[in-house]
């Protein structure tokens, strides 16, 4: 455990290397998920009557996009566990105060980010906490209520005369507001890198320049030379 903990603040003396930290699948997942979430938000809030897309078309797009997202998440869950990447989301709360302080003040005052990305730990404590919340609470609330909502024809008879549909809709809508808030903050945070577009470029190309330990550099050079750019 200590090894991982120190990697949060890795030795700054290690030489920085440009290395692929987001694999092709991870980027595919991220961007297709982003597209689907935007689609779902636009059509979903149209269904709710807050955005202008026609009801029937909105329902059709929303339903198919939801099915696509569920498939994507099923694959991605599988990917997380087979690759061990799920560990990225384990909250490491020790550094959280420093990061909160940075975003509250340091970033304004021009202080350096207290966190350095490493190969093993791509996310800072605030990020992993936010993503964990997204993946464990908001996401499941959305997709579970969404699946129940979508399969209304299967349980409509049982629900006649009850508030069941209303409760499902309530959960789904509440989670939709939360994810929308998450997405806004998430997008804003991508502008807080070295340059406003740095993080977005990283998420597109997959490459970032991070300090690599000698062992990591040697491993990559030997086994995954494609991931090392320079």
């Amino acid at each position, binding site marked *: 455990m200590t090894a991982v903990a120190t990697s949060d603040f890795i030795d700054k003396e290690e030489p920085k290397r440009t290395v692929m930290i987001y694999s092709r699948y991870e980027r595919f997942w991220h961007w297709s998920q982003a597209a689907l979430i935007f689609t779902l938000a636009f059509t979903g809030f149209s*269904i*709710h*009557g807050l955005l202008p897309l*026609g*009801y*029937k078309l909105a*329902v*059709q797009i929303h*339903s*198919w996009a939801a099915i696509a997202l569920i498939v994507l998440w099923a694959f991605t869950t599988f990917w997380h566990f087979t690759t061990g990447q799920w560990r990225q989301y384990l909250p490491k709360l020790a550094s959280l105060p420093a990061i909160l302080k940075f*975003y509250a003040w340091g*970033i*304004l*005052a*021009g202080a350096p980010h207290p966190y350095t990305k490493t190969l093993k730990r791509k996310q800072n404590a605030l990020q992993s906490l936010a993503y964990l919340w997204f993946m464990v609470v908001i996401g499941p609330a959305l997709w579970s209520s969404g699946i129940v909502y979508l399969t*209304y*024809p299967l349980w*409509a*008879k049982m629900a*006649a*005369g009850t*508030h069941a*549909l*209303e409760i499902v*809709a*309530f959960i789904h*809508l*509440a989670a*939709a*507001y*939360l994810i*929308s*808030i998450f997405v*806004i*903050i998430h997008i*804003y945070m991508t*502008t*807080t890198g070295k340059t406003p577009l740095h993080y977005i470029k990283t998420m597109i190309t997959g490459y970032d320049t991070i300090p690599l330990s000698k062992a990591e550099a040697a491993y990559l050079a030997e086994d995954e030379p494609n991931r090392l750019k320079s």
Partner: protein
Amino acid sequence: MTAHARFFTAAGFALLLGVTAAMAQEKFQKTDSPPPPPAKYQKMEAPPPPPPPVLNQAFGPVLGTTADHSKFEALKGPFADSAAVTKACATCHTEAEAHIKKTIHWTWDYVNPRTGQHLGKENVINNFCTNAKDNEGMCGVCHIGNGVKANEEYAFNKQDSVDCLVCHDRTGKYYRLPPTRGNSACAAMFEGRDPINFAEVAQHVGLPGRENCGTCHFNGGGGDGVKHGDLDSSLIRPSEALDVHMSEQGQNFSCSECHLSKDHKIAGSRYDMAAKDEGGVGKPGQRRDVATCESCHGAAPHPKPSLIGYQLDAHAERIACQTCHIPKIARGGVATITDWDWSTAGKMVNGAGYYEEEYTQGNGEKRHTYWSIKGDFKWGENLTPTYKWFNGEMIYTLADSKIDTSKPVTPINDPQGGWTDPRSRIWPFKEMHTNMPYDAGNKTLVFNHLWGADDTAFWGNFNIRKSIAAGMKMENRPFSGEIGFLPTVSNWPITHMVAPKEEALKCAACHARDSRLAGVPGIYMPGYSRFGWMDFLGLAGLGLTLAGVAVHGGLRVAMNKKNKGEAK
């Protein structure tokens, strides 16, 4: 000539008769009301001859015939009257009369097994001409009995008293006249019609077409389209857009294609409705006791596999088929009455009744907007129905029901059910609003004696106090003598004028803020429903987040410049 004019049935006479009666009278009591507007007087003319019936209508499962009635010896005639024809019919159709006499078409008497209420035209009070009882001399024109002539007592048990021809005539030349002549001046209205060649009619009988059923059912409430909103003469030759089932360009359904019968007992009475039919199509030929959409289309009729198809099928759990598939009523060019005010009835000009025709309906015909014998009317066409939960049960306000005058409107028939009742669905209704006379002392509805040659009948004497007192006496009912006018509503479930599927309501007709179903209780309807505080919190959260991000971003930009400036 318009469809309406061509289809001038015996029941249509009722309208003309009343006017004639009104004109002839002298006993009107003057009131202090302002002088009525200029009057138009009834021209006495016989109605035009009826058109030939629509051919090749589909009649339930019966197709083709093995009997040519023109070849039957018994039908050679000549016949003196329709009773003589009935006698001839019975030589082959030995059980028909016995069947008929058990049906509500004959008895006008019905006990609802679900509510226990005693209904039927001989019992109920409606909010059109209010009561058939005590007005049989006129209203009996729609009773399928024979042998009730002027000054003759009703004799329903008499042999050969069923009128076979009014339902089975396929020449279009048979007609019925009111059993009695009513006020003296009315006789003129029955003159000038071609005499009926009973032998010809008898030799051309068949299964009832839309014209036959429509003789009465299109003219309920006193004229074409008056009562239902989804039943009027436009359905004799409807376009496909008006009625996808009955159109000659479509299925050309006769009424009995859906209203199947067994022993002359016809399915689909409004008195006991199947508001939610989960029986579906049943086995072939099995379901003869319902006239539901589901009995032909099944309980899951929308196209599948399709996401929308599954969702629409699920709608049927809580929404009647009619709600989406009959987007508007009275859309065939014939108007329906939505409001009726009896309190203005009885005004006269120069000692005679009169009428005004200020409404011109879609097919160009004018309709009465005031009529001395009935009061003021409001008409409507292309109307959006009213939507209510309904489980098929109606509770009627009957003659002995105590009226709760604290209610703003008294329902004449009250659809039962609600969102918590799984047997209920949201149904379309035509609401009929009538300000009608009642016994303000005893707080009951009243029987009004409208029709007759005596000096109490309202149509002729124009004294509502006298006519109601007479009606209540005929019924042996207590009457306080105090007449008031009561706002009432009756609810007419809508089920005809089914539009082609392309014309069915679009999703957004209901799933929108200005939903058609706005105000129907107990529904969560995406696009219409909101979660007050949660929507507020959600939108506030979104707004604050955007604001926070903007402030943070702005500070970053500002501080960055400042830092750079200091570095220099």
